[in-house]
């Protein structure tokens, strides 16, 4: 038997026989040499031998060795008429040939022949190959052909199955290449096909298409409902081949239920009634005694049940079904199968967010708490935490928070931070009494201090500052907590901050007199890290204001060598400045400078944002927040970048909030993870200001470009800023230009928590109509790292050379994969002709002399236009300077006019430019005149500058 010969050949090179790695490599190299010589030999190999060696190569590759030959032989096998030879050829190509191979043309040719062969086996192999490789080249070649095969009347069922999924693969890879057409309506009718395998494959295809084009596939709803109805009401033997352990067509049922989740509840009452019946039947069957004791039976049955419950939750419209689903899941919570307990907890989490079933879910609280305490699998306990979080409301918050806190003591390290966040959120959200809230957070720090992130302790400070009814209690509580000989550094931070603000509220008690408070804090000082010590120094200067009697003690401390000469610049600077401040400032000035922090603006909890970032927005929802969270997400993702210190009361900066400007950070801004681009813009006021965190309106101020942005005119007069932003990606720019050269730093920030893969940003110059052959701009750049981690930022440097004057700005094309989908973004890069301006100063006399020299009509371009912005002299001046020309003062006889001069540098020429802008306040109009020695330059500069006013 020939086939067993192949097998024997493979056994011959089996690793199992080799004693060591070296021996294996030796054996393989020998085999590779042998195969190579066979392929190179004079004698043409017959198909069988070719197949044998290609198969061996494949085997060697699968063992983990590199293969760099044999591709041609594999392609040759494709045109064989023998199934086995063809199969090995196709397999080799599916596993080993990448899409940009030069062989792709030959391969596509062979596939084309097989598709046309009318031999169902060969057609199947070809379709599977397309589905497995799924490259763009294949989509280009076959996206037209595959739908035809799928809907042709004479296509065999098994080929139809393959064609449906092959088309699905092409649609996922290159949706633009798969045109909707006549076939779409015929595909929907495959839901009625007699062959359940065809229906199974077609349902997947239709579901994917319907997600993108719900209108076109709307008719699939009623067809899916009737198909589902026929399945669930069938007797367990009706479907024969498709009955799995007494469950009729479980996978197809799941797929149909998923398809229905692409749509709202059916509008047609008949369809809707039939669907409700189906769902009721599925719920009823769950109560019937099992037809088999085998786990396969119950798994298959429950797979359908869980999918039905997902659909019920998705519709969220039938209170009766929702409550029944909840009761069913309640039974599973105590099931002996861990899988079922896990899935019930998970599914109940979504039920908890429906108003119809929230109360029903709450009745299971004790079981869930018990799961938290007794489950062996950490992922099950995790689901229990999730569910407790989801079912929490005012009525049970105290119990749930207490249970979570006690679980935290023994919780797995991997989920502690998340539990801390959840406790902090629930404690804040359902606090009736803020003393309870403060106690809870301090407990969190005591139990799991290392897992309490900045967001959490910033938040407790925000709340204490904003609520004067809790300040005295907070001061007393932190004072007591600090008595512990060993307390977590986070407690020192919170304690230091709160006593610095509100220590006076407990100073009346001699047990917590100012000096006692100070000594208590200072006893922790030396064990703390630099940021905490910096914070404590700020507390001390606040004490100087609050308690004049401890001023000398504190001055002594500040004066000490360990402060004034501290190796850390930040600490040293604080010590010097605070000491000086305490010495020279009058009491009044001190009181003003060190005034109590003003309340923080109310905003979305930064902790919630953090949790969302950790878990992804969809997993953190609850009844009251669902709507609000959606609107927040629309505005660009979880956490607005906290650029200034006012975002979170970062004590290292805020206590210093000297006087009226608490937002001005002294020292370096706190690096609190969320701000992707903060560092880039720290020097740019216009970008830093709107980044004020929490305020959604400000966040909207960034331009959003759905496709290529039309003008990008906001960058004409500035070089830095946010170029583009969507849910996933933020692009920032920083650029500098000198003469005809420029350098642009592009910063790509991944706003999600998921990696971007194959990240390829490509800047491309565009040619205007006049320049089919010449390039006006040269752009040089290196590829960036193709993987961008969640929350990370990568930088790309583009070197720019302006060859000659131009009008079309280059385009930045960005492609990447995000969570399995292919993303494509194109943005216009704001490289405009005026970037290559060098300002020229000149006297009034020179200016008008040149002005007259450039009086040729082609040299002058004039534009009269209405003001789009308020006509402010200073802003206008700033814009002209930002535009790149010199602003010439006292040149124009009319002081209301603006004149400018400069030279546009390109590689091939230098063009002198004069400009004059005459505002007419009464008419709210401007007249802008450009005179240069080159018409195209005058034209372009006039266009660019006109947009600015």
């Amino acid at each position, binding site marked *: 038997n020939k086939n067993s010969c192949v*097998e024997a050949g493979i056994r011959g090179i089996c690793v199992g026989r080799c004693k060591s790695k070296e021996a294996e490599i030796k054996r393989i190299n020998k085999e590779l040499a042998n195969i190579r010589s066979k392929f190179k030999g004079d004698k043409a190999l017959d198909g069988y031998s070719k197949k044998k060696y290609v198969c061996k190569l494949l085997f060697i590759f699968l063992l983990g060795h590199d293969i760099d030959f044999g591709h041609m032989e594999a392609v040759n096998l494709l045109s064989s008429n023998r199934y086995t030879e063809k199969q090995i050829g196709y397999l080799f190509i599916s596993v080993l040939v990448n899409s940009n191979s030069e062989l792709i043309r030959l391969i596509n040719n062979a596939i084309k022949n097989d598709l046309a062969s009318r031999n169902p086996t060969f057609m199947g192999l070809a379709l599977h190959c397309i589905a497995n490789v799924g490259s763009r080249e294949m989509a280009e070649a076959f996206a037209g052909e595959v739908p035809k095969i799928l809907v042709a009347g004479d296509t065999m069922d*098994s080929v139809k199955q393959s064609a449906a999924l092959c088309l699905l693969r092409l649609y996922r890879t290159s949706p633009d290449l798969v045109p909707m057409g006549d076939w779409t309506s015929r595909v929907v009718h495959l839901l009625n096909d007699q062959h359940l*395998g065809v229906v199974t494959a077609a349902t997947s295809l239709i579901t994917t298409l319907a997600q993108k084009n719900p209108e076109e596939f709307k008719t699939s709803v009623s067809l899916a409902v009737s198909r589902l109805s026929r399945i669930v009401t069938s007797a367990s033997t009706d479907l*024969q081949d498709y009955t799995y352990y007494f469950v009729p067509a479980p996978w197809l049922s799941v797929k149909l239920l998923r398809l229905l989740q692409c749509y709202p509840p059916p509008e047609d009452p008949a369809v809707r009634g039939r669907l409700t019946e189906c769902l009721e039947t599925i719920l009823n069957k769950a109560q019937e005694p099992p037809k088999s004791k085998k786990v396969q039976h119950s798994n298959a049955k429950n797979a359908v049940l*869980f999918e039905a419950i997902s659909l019920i939750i998705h519709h969220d419209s039938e209170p009766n079904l929702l409550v029944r689903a909840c009761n069913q899941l309640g039974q599973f919570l105590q099931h002996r199968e*861990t899988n079922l307990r896990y899935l019930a907890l998970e599914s109940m989490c979504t039920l908890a967010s429906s108003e119809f079933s929230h109360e029903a879910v709450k009745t299971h609280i004790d079981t869930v708490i018990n799961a938290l305490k007794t489950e062996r699998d950490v992922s099950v306990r995790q689901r229990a935490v999730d569910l407790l979080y989801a079912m929490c409301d005012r009525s049970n918050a105290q119990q749930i928070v207490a249970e979570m806190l006690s679980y935290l003591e023994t919780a797995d390290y991997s989920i502690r931070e998340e539990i801390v966040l959840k406790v902090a959120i629930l404690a804040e959200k359902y606090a009736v009494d803020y003393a309870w809230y403060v106690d809870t957070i301090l407990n969190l720090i005591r139990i799991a201090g290392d897992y309490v992130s900045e967001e959490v302790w910033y938040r407790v400070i925000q709340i204490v500052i904003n609520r004067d009814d809790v300040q005295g209690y907070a001061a007393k509580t932190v004072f007591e907590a600090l008595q512990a000989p060993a307390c977590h550094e986070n407690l020192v931070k919170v304690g230091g901050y709160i006593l610095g603000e509100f220590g006076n509220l407990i100073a009346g008690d001699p047990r917590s007199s100012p000096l006692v408070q100070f000594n208590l804090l200072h006893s922790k000082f030396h064990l703390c890290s630099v940021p905490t010590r910096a914070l404590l120094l700020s507390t001390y200067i606040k004490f100087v204001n609050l308690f004049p009697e401890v001023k000398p003690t504190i001055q002594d401390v500040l004066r000490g060598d360990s402060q004034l000469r501290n190796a850390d610049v930040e600490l040293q600077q604080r010590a010097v400045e605070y000491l000086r401040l305490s010495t020279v400032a009058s009491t009044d000035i001190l009181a003003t400078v060190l005034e109590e922090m003003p309340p923080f603006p109310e905003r979305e909890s930064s902790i919630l944002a953090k949790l969302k970032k950790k878990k992804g927005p969809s997993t953190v929802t609850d009844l009251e927040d669902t709507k609000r969270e959606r609107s927040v997400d629309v505005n660009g993702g979880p956490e607005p970048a906290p650029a200034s210190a006012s975002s979170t009361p970062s004590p290292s900066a805020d206590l210093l909030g000297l006087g009226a400007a608490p937002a001005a950070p002294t020292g370096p801004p706190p690096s609190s993870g969320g701000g992707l681009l903060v560092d880039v813009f720290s020097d740019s006021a216009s970008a830093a200001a709107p980044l004020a965190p929490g305020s959604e309106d400000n966040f909207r101020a960034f331009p959003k470009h759905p496709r290529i942005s039309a003008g990008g005119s906001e960058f004409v007069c500035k070089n830095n800023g946010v170029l583009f932003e969507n849910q996933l990606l933020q692009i920032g720019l920083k650029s500098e230009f000198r003469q005809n050269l420029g350098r642009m730093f592009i910063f790509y920030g991944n706003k999600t928590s998921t990696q971007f893969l194959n990240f390829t940003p490509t800047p491309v110059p565009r040619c205007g109509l006049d320049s089919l052959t010449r390039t006006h701009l040269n752009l040089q750049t290196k590829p960036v790292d193709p993987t961008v981690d969640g929350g990370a930022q990568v930088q790309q440097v583009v070197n720019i050379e302006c060859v000659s004057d131009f009008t079309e700005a280059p385009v930045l094309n960005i492609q990447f994969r995000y969570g*399995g989908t292919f993303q494509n973004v194109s943005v216009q890069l704001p490289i405009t002709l005026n970037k290559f301006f060098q300002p020229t100063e000149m006297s009034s006399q020179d200016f008008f002399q040149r002005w007259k020299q450039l009086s040729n009509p082609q040299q002058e371009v004039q534009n009269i236009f209405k003001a789009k912005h308020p006509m402010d002299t200073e802003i206008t001046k700033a814009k002209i300077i930002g535009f790149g020309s010199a602003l010439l003062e006292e040149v124009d006889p009319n002081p209301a006019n603006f004149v400018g001069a400069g030279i546009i540098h390109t590689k091939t020429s230098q063009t002198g430019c004069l400009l004059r802008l005459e505002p007419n306040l009464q008419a709210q109009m401007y007249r802008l005149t450009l005179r240069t020695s080159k018409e195209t330059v005058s034209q372009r500069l006039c266009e660019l500058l006109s947009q600015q006013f």
Partner: protein
Amino acid sequence: RVWIRFILIQNRAGKTRLAKWYMQFDDDEKQKLIEEVHAVVTVRDAKHTNFVEFRNFKIIYRRYAGLYFCICVDVNDNNLAYLEAIHNFVEVLNEYFHNVCELDLVFNFYKVYTVVDEMFLAGEIRETSQTKVLKQLLMLQSLE
């Protein structure tokens, strides 16, 4: 957005017996995934669920003697449906190879790929009827 990202069959020692990818990964990434999956799956015992969160996805797995059959899907996909899809697949292999063992998968790897393509294609379940799949496999075998 729901489809299988990959199917892996590994033994306890971490040797891969089948790797079927339904998404583009480069070779390094594949190797990393294989190692990570092995690490998360082999530490679990019978009291654990058959599901593990994995990066932004989840792994549904089932152990048969020394072999782990793992399917990676979206987090919101139906766990039990894939758990039984694995079993259905294993029953087909068992029937086709007459009591399948690890070595069958090694030496007949090219046949295993055919079985996979019959049952799963483009990351979706293609055919679930064991009768239909086996009939097709026997027909193909007769062509050899």
